[in-house]
Each structure stands twice: as C-alpha cells, then as structure tokens.
C-alpha cells in the first residue's frame, strides 16, 4: 500500500513569491495533518482536516498561509507571499480517524528554501 505522497520534494523560491505544496494521503484516511518542521526542531501542527473540514487551524498564519482539502482526499498548502522565515520542511500526515488507536503516518515532506 502506498504511503503518504507529497510533492514537490524540494522547492527554492525568492521571498515574496507564492508557493504551493500538495499531499495525497493514504487511501481511506479521513484525517489529514500539515506540520512544519524548522531546522533543529520537531514538527509542529499547522492545520488538521477531518474529511474536507478544517477542524483545527489555530496554528496556521492566516495572513499568508491557506490550505484546502477539496473532496476530502488530496490537500494543498499555499504560502503567498513567502518570507525568509518560512524556510522549513512541510510534512503531511494522515490517520484513519481522529482516535488514539490510529497512528499518524507521515509523508517525506517538502523542503522549502526561501532566498
């Protein structure tokens, strides 16, 4: 079974440019998470979806970040405009359901460098 798929794997952009990341979760997983991992840190949650509903976006910087999960499957995370401090690895994870019995599975991440 395929794991969580993310693209692109790497992205280098200049500041003030827009950028988008795409995530395809494990088939049948209703819950989708976007985390950001800064250099030397553990991942931190940005947003969580239950199907197509964003149920926790409290940590998403809404002035420049947006996300969507149309049809409750794939998801995109967008930054516009990007700032130098946005350089990080953006990880997508999915889980069968919002329940302690179900593990979160992480994708390989997109490494963003803003110059």
């Amino acid at each position: 079974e395929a794991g969580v798929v993310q693209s692109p794997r790497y992205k280098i952009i200049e500041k003030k440019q827009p950028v988008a990341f795409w995530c395809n979760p494990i088939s049948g997983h209703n819950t989708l998470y976007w985390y950001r991992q800064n250099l030397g840190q553990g991942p931190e949650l940005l947003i969580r979806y239950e199907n197509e509903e964003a149920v926790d976006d409290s940590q998403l910087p809404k002035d420049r970040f947006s996300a969507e999960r149309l049809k409750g499957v794939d998801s995109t995370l967008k930054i516009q405009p990007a700032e130098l401090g946005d350089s990080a690895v953006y990880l997508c994870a999915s889980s069968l359901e919002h329940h302690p019995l179900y593990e979160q599975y992480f994708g390989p991440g997109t490494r963003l460098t803003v110059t």
Partner: protein
Amino acid sequence: TQLLEQSPQFLSIQEGENLTVYCNSSSVFSSLQWYRQEPGEGPVLLVTVVTGGEVKKLKRLTFQFGDARKDSSLHITAAQPGDTGLYLCGFRLLLNRDDKIIFGKGTRLHILP
C-alpha cells in the same frame, strides 16, 4: 519552554557502542511516543509507552517510561550505522477537538562505521 526536553541534542558514537537518549518533562503524560526520522523522510513511529515503569523492546532498542510518567528513555545496544537519524519523542494530544503530536526537538544520532 519546551514541553518535552530531549537530551543530548547531538550524539556521535562508534559502531558497536551502546547509548541512551532521554526525554524529560515536568508534566505527566498518559503516553509517550518515540519516532525515528531519517534524512529526507518523515518521522516513523517506533513505539508508544503507556504504563508507568513500562519497558518495551524493539530488537536492539529498549524504551522505558518513567514510573511517574514524566520521562522516557531510549537505549540502543551495539549501535549500527543504520541507526543514524533523528530520534523524536512526542506526546499525542487528544483532548476535545484537539488531535496533534507535540514533539521534542529531537536527538540527532550519528553512528560512525
């Protein structure tokens, strides 16, 4: 302040040596998780410890949950180059509508052949 403090931050040892890394907190947890993250990949769950004093073994890796459920340790016996990676401890917060993993900063382990 970090909810979960991991130490050491970096560790570089020779193949065949033993090592222990730690995850400490002033808070009490219902469970703690350990993940390994290899370069260019996302974290992969190794184990979840639930009961105070619990010890779980995964081949050469031994995980222990403190009696008071505030700390945990990971011991690797006879380390191998394949053990190289970032070891993260984390707490899965599932409360009301919350569902997220809160991670420590990790221990970056490098095993020299």
